[in-house]
């Protein structure tokens, strides 16, 4: 795996003229972005502008809602993930997801990870995998004595780290995070942010956040989304750049207004 300062960056996910529909309603339009390997890419923007919709399109989670469709193209390592022959299950195996609200399975902490690994045919040492995953998620020390208690018995922040552990247990290339800290208290949020910095050594991360500080602090690239046009309700990407640029010298006036808290 490559690390920083690579003059030729590798892009894991790329979109071309992406439009996402709920039935006939175009929720997202005109998105062109590239997600660089081993970087954290943040998606920011006011509520309802289609951040989650865009994120879910990256691993085809949108399909779980009836009537969704896309136009344009999303590629993963150069391959069109919406091509006919592509299995969404396979996509989600490689592009994992952490959700806004912690959603551990109502199984034991151990089983949350073991089940996930098992369905993907994991044959190795399960105890080791569980321990590794929990350690990577910085949860091991807190739960090592109660691995067989229900995942639901943990605090919210611990549950979210369990979900992260679960996601990384199957070694995806990309982890999508949809406001992973929005339901957590500040201390738990901090832990998640620190964790993300650890994780980006091995994974590519795309995170949706409405928290400017979080985006500014934690991410390498930032995509700014906004509802486009006047009567139009479609969200679109108005600016995409390195995070420091977005937060210091944004090209778009609306971005500047938004990141400085003038609206949103």
């Amino acid at each position, binding site marked *: 795996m490559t690390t920083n300062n690579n003059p030729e960056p590798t892009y894991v996910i790329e979109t071309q003229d992406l439009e996402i529909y709920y039935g006939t309603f175009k929720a997202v339009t005109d998105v062109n972005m590239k997600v660089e390997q081993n970087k954290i890419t943040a998606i920011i923007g006011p509520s309802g502008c289609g951040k989650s919709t865009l994120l879910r399109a990256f691993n085809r989670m949108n399909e779980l809602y009836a009537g969704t469709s896309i136009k344009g193209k999303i590629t993963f390592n150069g391959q069109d993930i919406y091509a006919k022959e592509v299995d969404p299950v396979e996509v989600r195996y*490689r592009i994992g997801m952490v959700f806004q609200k912690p959603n551990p399975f109502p199984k034991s902490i151990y089983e949350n990870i073991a089940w996930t690994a098992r*369905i993907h045919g994991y044959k190795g040492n399960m105890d080791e995998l569980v321990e590794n995953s929990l350690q990577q998620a910085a949860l091991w020390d807190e739960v090592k004595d109660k691995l067989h208690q229900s995942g639901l018995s943990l605090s919210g922040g611990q549950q979210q780290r369990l979900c992260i552990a679960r996601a990384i247990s199957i070694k995806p*290339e990309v982890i999508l995070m949809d406001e992973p800290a929005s339901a957590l208290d500040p201390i738990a949020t901090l832990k998640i942010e620190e964790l993300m910095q650890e994780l980006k050594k091995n994974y590519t991360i795309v995170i949706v956040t409405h928290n400017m500080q979080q985006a500014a602090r934690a991410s390498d690239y930032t995509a700014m989304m906004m509802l486009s046009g006047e009567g139009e309700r479609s969200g679109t990407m108005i600016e995409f750049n390195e995070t420091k640029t977005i937060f210091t010298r944004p090209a778009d006036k609306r971005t500047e207004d938004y990141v400085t808290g003038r609206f949103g």
Partner: protein
Amino acid sequence: MKEKEVIQGFSNNLNARNRKGVIWHIIFQASTLVGIVALIALMLNIVNSAFGYVAYEARVDPDTFTVDGVPLEEQNKEQLLTLLQSELSRGAYNKLNNEEPFEERSRENVFQLIVERIIRPKVVAVWDLWPSLTQVDEIRATVAQDFPTAELDFVSWLTYDFVTRPQTSEALTAGVRTAILGSLWTIFFTILLAFPVGVGAAIYLEEYASDNWFNRIIQTNINNLAGVPSIVYGILGLAIFVRTLEPLTSGEIFGLVDPTTANGRTVLSAGLTLGLLVLPIIIINAQEAIRAVPRSLRNASFGVGATKWQTVWSHVLPNAMPGILTGTILAVSRAIGETAPLVVVGASTAISFDPESPFSKFTTLPIQIYQWTARPQAEFQSLAAASILVLLVLLLSLNASAVLLRNRFSRRF
């Protein structure tokens, strides 16, 4: 998709998983299909028995009644009446006259009486609808060979006459009027007991009862009663209504004892028994309807100084009524279809006269179906099938009205 390099023991087993997924998808779908097929089989099986060829022989050959070369079918009413008078005992003739004077009867009616009372056709063989449609020639051959004197007719066991004729022991002339009227009488008393009490109980539980142990027991108890097997209600009805309350249910204390009724096995007992049976269902349904009335409506009423009952009566009940009625109709359809408790309460096996008071002996449509189903002869199975169709039509129209009610008023809130 590019192969993900196999990391630390993960095997790319997606093909196998997907195959399993498809297989189970098919299994789930097939199970659903089984349910639908069962319903279709059930319906077809009934329709199959309700129509078809019947071979019947006259016990008395109608040709013997040919007068001056005029066959029976072409004789006029006077000739037929003479025949009827000469062939029936005077008592029987007078009884018919008392039921409806002969002057007022039509020729068809008199002819029908002659067929029923004198010629008395007897079923010798019955075919279901399917063979009747596909093997007509074989059927004709069989009849010609085995029953040379028999007539072969394609009949619908379900006819207008079938619905309006009283029960008799002859398959060809039996009807379900007695049973239908019995069902209606019974249901009347069921509703009379269960509707007011059920709605009252629901109002109590939703609007008045505080959350204490006693009211919780009432609620739990109602939920439990809804799951008690219906036959247990029959036994309860036998003990309470038929036996303990016999003076009331037989009409004795009103001096109205039906001379043919020996005891409390009456329409009233049956209705009350079914009333107890559906009471918990009505309560639960009514509670749901009452709960659906928004809090704000009650607050508005209390806000202008209405008392609790004024609020309930003028606001909660009117708005909950469609829901309550829908729930009641569904409960009543359950009661109409009940058989077991009524057998235990003591439905009569064979009555051919209509119930005319709460203290009459009773039979109901499901009881009639049960009795005909339990008879070994095929023609009675056909009668059972025809009465099932009557019952199902009755239930279907009830349910349709419940659905209409629900749809009509469902967009209220």
